[in-house]
């Protein structure tokens, strides 16, 4: 299992899509390819944009299927961040 503390790389407002993509490419995909579970830790993150969350997880849902969500735990999300994650998760599954 890998534990990714997002605040350390993206700060309290998670909006930089380039950083989201880097995290996905360099940490999430290699972990999933090894069959590892992932904790995405949002501790100290006040808010995130839909664009950031999309860049972080949409391609995982598309390429690994919605089952990938069983491998990812979203930890320490506040209400706003939870809702934005749910919007992305919803529309990616509606899109399939």
């Amino acid at each position, binding site marked *: 299992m890998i534990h990714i503390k997002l605040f350390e790389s993206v*700060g309290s*407002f998670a*909006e*930089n*899509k*380039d950083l989201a*993509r880097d995290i*996905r490419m360099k940490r999430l995909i290699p972990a999933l390819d090894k069959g590892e579970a992932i904790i995405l830790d949002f501790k100290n993150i*006040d*808010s995130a*944009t*839909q*664009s950031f969350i*999309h*860049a972080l997880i*949409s*391609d995982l849902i*598309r390429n690994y299927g919605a089952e990938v969500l069983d491998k990812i735990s979203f930890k320490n999300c506040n*209400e*706003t961040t939870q*809702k*934005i994650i*749910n*919007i*992305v998760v*919803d*529309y*990616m599954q*509606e*899109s*399939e």
Partner: protein
Amino acid sequence: MKIHLPNSAFLGNIDPFLRDFDASHPGTLEITSNKKWISIHPAVLSMVAALGLTIEPSNIKCEKFEATSKHYLERMGLFKFLRMKSGIEITEHDPAGRFIPLTQIKDSVGLTKFITDMIPLLHVEPKQAEPIRYVVSELARNVLEHSLSEHGAILSAQYYIKSNTIRIGIADTGVGIRKTINQSYNAKDDMDAIRLALMPGITGTTKREGGTELNAGAGLFFTKSIANVNRDYFMIYSGKGMYKLLKHKPTAKYTPLHADPFDDRHSKGMDFPFWQGTVVGIDISLNTTKEFSMLLDFIRDTYAKAVRERKKAKYRKAKFT
């Protein structure tokens, strides 16, 4: 080109200002103004600054401003963008709590830094800051990713004490919405392109539902939704098209969002002077700022419904003979 700064140009009454813009002779810029008073939305300032960056300073003719409020233009940094001396002397004040001067954002790192530095200047409560930084991030990233403008995004904002409102303007001189959208769609004119760009899940980068790995086509829909739920103005102008979300009555218990911007209370026109690029203006009233999380509930419902309906529209139909 000729642009005239009028007595008053805010989103509610911006149409005459836009119609007065003369886009001919793009190698020169002549700026004139109302002689008595200039009171303008940051979107207007951002437009003038963005135009100024595309012109050699020697080809910019700016008449001497006489209006009492001319100091505002100096303080917002307009003449730095025009690369000319205004001759207006001001005492610099700490901008905290009042305004964000004209700022050019050219890359992702610059945007992140700008957002971090910007919020303390506005001295707003955390719940009021949330939609502001959200809007700035989404709008500026749109410019950086899609406009292909060498000058990036030109942004400014102002707090208005009387209406307790933050007004934000962002302009670019890039390829415009129609060219971006038509990489994947076939918008017949600028207004058609604006309409598509405001729909959730429509992006110029792909026709596929869910977007690409980096683009979902939701940034403008979120931005318009923030204005809609709070009953604020939102304006987008690109090419010859201008769409404006109008205020609506506060009596409704809640505001249903619409996936199609033409279903919202709005005005529009597709015969405006041609703007090479895109301009967005938004007002965020701090009195009526609804909980951001409540807005997200509306967005979640509207977004998923829009995707379902688009998918359903593509279903093959049974033939009954």
